[in-house]
């Protein structure tokens, strides 16, 4: 394999392992090429059935809390709400994030998945990406408050899992949200 790509992959690996992936990406990303470290690549079945892109870049795949940890359902947090087509954190939502940060800081075995959601309007493919950015915005603030980034993962449902059915702003504003799901290692 080309050394240049190996180096690039290692830089990305370092970012991920140090828990700086968000920080790295905000300022300076690697040049964004990753080698798939498998031998023969079969286009019809490149990585084996059900295996996905295992191994590239190490740390970016696998290790999902949903697969590794037990869901904690007896502790819940209030959702974070967003404006239309926005992933900016509104000032009145910050206190709710601070509450989650305090919980994580005093419960070291708990880890968090932030679930990003959108209202039903607009392209559902775009909403899936927007929901991820909403979850990441909450994640960034939790990291800013001192929570270890390795303890926070994200998943977006876009507009596929509304909290409230129906139409109109009274419904939509409750569906533009970030939800918190606690897991225990």
């Amino acid at each position, binding site marked *: 394999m080309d050394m240049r790509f190996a180096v690039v992959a290692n830089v990305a690996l370092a970012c991920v392992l140090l828990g700086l992936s968000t920080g790295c990406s905000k300022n300076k990303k690697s040049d964004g090429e990753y080698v798939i470290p498998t031998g023969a690549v079969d*286009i019809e079945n490149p990585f084996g059935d059900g295996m996905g892109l295992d191994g590239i870049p190490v740390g970016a795949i696998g290790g999902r809390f949903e697969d590794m940890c037990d869901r904690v359902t007896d502790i819940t947090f209030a959702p974070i709400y967003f404006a239309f087509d926005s992933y900016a954190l509104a000032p009145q939502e910050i206190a709710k994030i601070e509450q989650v940060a305090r919980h994580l800081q005093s419960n070291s075995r708990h880890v968090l998945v932030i679930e990003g959601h959108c209202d039903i309007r*607009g392209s559902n493919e775009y909403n899936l990406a927007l929901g991820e950015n909403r979850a990441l915005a909450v994640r960034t603030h939790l990291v800013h408050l001192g929570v270890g980034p390795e303890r926070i993962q994200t998943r977006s449902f876009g507009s596929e899992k509304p909290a409230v059915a129906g139409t109109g702003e009274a419904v939509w504003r409750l569906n533009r949200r970030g939800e918190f799901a606690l897991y225990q290692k």
Partner: protein
Amino acid sequence: MVVVFVLIGVFCCGSAQAQGGGGELLGRVVKEGAKKDAVSLSGLNVSGQNGQLFLTTLKRNLELSGWFQIAGAGAGGGITVNGSAADTGGGVQSNCRVTWGGGQSFTWARASQGTAEVRRQAQELVDEMVRRIRNETGIATSRITFVNRMGSNHAELYVCDADGQGMMQITQDKVALVGPRWAPNKKDILYTSFTKGYPTVLRHTVGGARKTVANFKGLNTGGAVSPDGTRVALILSFEGNPELYVLDYATARVIRMTNTPHGVEASPCWSPDGRSIVYVSDTSRSPQLYLLDVASRQSKRLTYTGSENVNPDWSAKGEIAYATRRGGGYQIAVMDPAKGDASARILTGAPDRSEHPSWAPDSRHLVCSDGSTLYILDTLGDPAVRLINVAGSWISPDWSK
């Protein structure tokens, strides 16, 4: 360039005719916008149930092709289909000769078993007629995949023929499913699935197995196979926030194509030559279309008109269809990417709130959704045809091509 001008010219005429003709929109096939050649089927003798099915399918697909109309009983047609389609007990045997202007003709002889194969045989004959008589790519043997949104975190994948028949449910997952796209082999469908509780990109062979294409941390979506089948465009967030990537099987690399720390990307679609990708990005603060040159990894903004421009789909002949938000709901627009959206034309006659257009293999028709059902639109001016008559939330159609 000449082709585009001709298309626009014909389109304008077609619209005027459609308004004058006032074609019926729903239920049955009424295609009277663009000029058509009359086909006489009175010399085709059919027998039994399967013969009738062959004839019914032949008629519907000739009309849906947009190039033909069925001549009334007793009236002559410029095109004649003479011969027979005989029920063989479980199948059909067709033997016919298709004749058109200046004494040109071809013969057709096929045998098939089973209802789906009887229909398929008629669809193949229609595509052959479109190819021989009009020198165009037919749509009758193509298929459409789409999603039925059944509730919160519940959607299932479906496939039907281009005439709306032969509808099949493909998944039984009872979780969300987003953005199905045919692979160019016309057998596999890529989509974003929540079967694991978070989004991953799967590749599903219709009637067969499925494999995971992407399962990184964070978001995995937007799977779209390149025309040569060697690369997959993906939207991934494992580096920090959603970006457009290309997974290149030939060089075993995943390559990031965008760098938008404050924006997200969605809905990548390859150009027919595989050199460019049109996609959605909100770096301008609203979702707009951008054009990526894959080799240089340079992108430029394509759309400036409309508060949102989403769901791009590139035709085999080089035009991009998309959903544009101007005022309240979305409308379907078509543009020449070399000219940008100043050259875009809005397709008239589409239902209100139409979105998610996908080109047919003929680069003339489009399928779209109004949020509850699917419609076939015609860029040459035929009225919209409703494709699905079953109640549901039928969305996100993708036409194999």
